[in-house]
């Protein structure tokens, strides 16, 4: 669990982060969104002390982050940045092994972990372990960046616009991968982005920042239905709020008992996707099926629309 208490950063006479407090539950994903200059990256960088706070404190699992030297703290916290920052003079395997080496893991344990992560991220160790980063595609480099951050099994992962440089298709895949990896390892993730769709897709809690202040920290649905102020409402997209709300609910959650002769939709699809499917096919209800093809009930157009209002 990450607890941020009245954290501030001031440079001379400008305040970049202004008394921000919030907490991220252990094993969940929280996303900080804001426009550029909102202080979101500075806030993130104060958690692993790449930026030293001017006031306030950060507790990770109850321990004040100032209780040990910054570089030792950082070895226990995964860190992913936009553009990866992979070491160009080191192979993929050496890049991933960075933190285990700093921590003094023995060679066999490090090699096993590197191979495990490469496989997990869909990179064949035989092909990629000895490649140099610039021989990889952008998407592959990004995955190596995440693998490197996870190498020493950190309990906390900080990500600063990790998918910002990826094209939309690869970005969607990277987001899916992150959700799967988070479920597998159960680490606490704090991610910074300016992309609201990304925030809603990944975050179980979303923090909206502007001018160094934390305006609202809430569940995505609550940000839409009860925005703290006009800025939060504009950030979350007034024109799209109904559809965004629908995108937070899966067909499986909303399905009601009954049968339908409409199109089949996966239980994992969002109501937004189901609505799109119904509009497209002209049907007024859909058949919800599980991953194994078993019927899971039905969704009517009216039922979907009813979920899109506060």
């Amino acid at each position: 669990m990450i607890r941020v208490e009245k954290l501030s950063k001031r440079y001379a006479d400008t305040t970049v982060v202004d008394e921000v407090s919030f907490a991220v539950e252990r094993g969940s994903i929280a996303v900080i969104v804001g426009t550029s200059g909102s202080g979101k990256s500075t806030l993130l960088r104060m958690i692993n002390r790449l930026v030293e706070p001017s006031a306030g404190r950060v507790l990770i699992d109850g321990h004040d982050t100032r209780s040990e030297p910054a570089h030792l703290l950082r070895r226990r916290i995964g860190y992913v940045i936009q553009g990866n920052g992979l070491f160009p003079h080191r192979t993929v395997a050496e890049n991933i092994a960075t933190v285990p080496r700093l921590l003094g893991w023995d060679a066999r344990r490090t090699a096993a972990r590197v191979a495990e992560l490469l496989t997990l991220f869909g990179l064949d160790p035989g092909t990629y372990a000895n490649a140099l980063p610039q021989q990889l595609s952008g998407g592959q480099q990004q995955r190596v960046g995440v693998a490197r951050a996870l190498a020493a099994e950190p309990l906390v992962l900080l990500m600063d616009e990790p998918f910002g440089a990826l094209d939309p298709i690869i970005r969607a895949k990277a987001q899916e991968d992150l959700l799967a990896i988070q479920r597998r390892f159960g680490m606490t993730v704090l991610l910074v982005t300016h992309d609201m769709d990304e925030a809603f897709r990944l975050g179980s809690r979303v923090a909206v920042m502007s001018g160094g202040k934390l305006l609202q920290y809430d569940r995505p649905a609550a940000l839409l239905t009860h925005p703290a102020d006009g800025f939060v409402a504009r950030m979350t997209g007034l024109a799209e709020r109904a559809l965004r709300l629908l995108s937070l609910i899966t067909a499986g959650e909303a399905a009601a008992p009954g049968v339908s002769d409409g199109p089949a939709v996966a239980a994992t699809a969002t109501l937004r996707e189901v609505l799109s499917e119904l509009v497209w096919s002209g049907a007024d209800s859909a058949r919800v099926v599980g991953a194994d093809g078993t019927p899971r009930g039905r969704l009517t157009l009216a039922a979907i629309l009813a979920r899109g209002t506060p």
Partner: protein
Amino acid sequence: MPRAATLLRLAALALLLAFLLWPQSFAPLFTPLTQYGAPPIYDQGNLLSLALAQLGTVCLAAAASTVVAVGLGILVTRPSGAQFLPLSRTLVNVGQTFPPVAVLAVAVPLVGFGEKPTLIALFAYGLLPIFENTLVGLKTCPPAVLEAASGMGMSARQRLLSVELPLAMPLILEGVRLSLVINVGTATIGSTVAAKGLGEVIIAGLLSSNTAFILQGGLVTGLMAILLYDGMAALERRLLRQVALD
């Protein structure tokens, strides 16, 4: 590397070695340059040992320049040493602009004749290219890479040794190469203060109006500089095959 270029270099090396080992066999070539039956090949010392002495002096000076220039470059790119950048630049620039002959003149009363004043002059003259290249190399490390290195938990020292210096290495080595090549030629002036070197041959030629001597000293020095340049370049490529920068 193109085949022809490699062959040319090997031929140059063979020519240089042949001349240094068996200078007398080249006598017929140089005889037309002499007058009144003067010796066509330098006969007041062993050409090979003179060439090696000069090479040794140059390498020793370059090693000292490298240690000092790279050290200074590292110092002034650290946050704590940034204030020394203007001072270091001035010092290094003075080293380059102060004529090596003048350095000799100043150094001789202090350290006496021989090898030492030459070493001092070459050391000062060789600092600039290494220092400037080290600076550029360290300052142009990609910011995201440095941020990642710190974010992974490297200490400042670990970051310097395992990220910054390896990334700056191609430029640093290029600086060392420039410094070496400049100084192979400059080193001949050491002979004016009794340092062993090919300058002896050139000076002997000047004193006795023997064009053959002057040419021998000059040609051997020039060939050494070219081969040293190419040799260093090849060594860099070998060393840096891993450090493929985009």
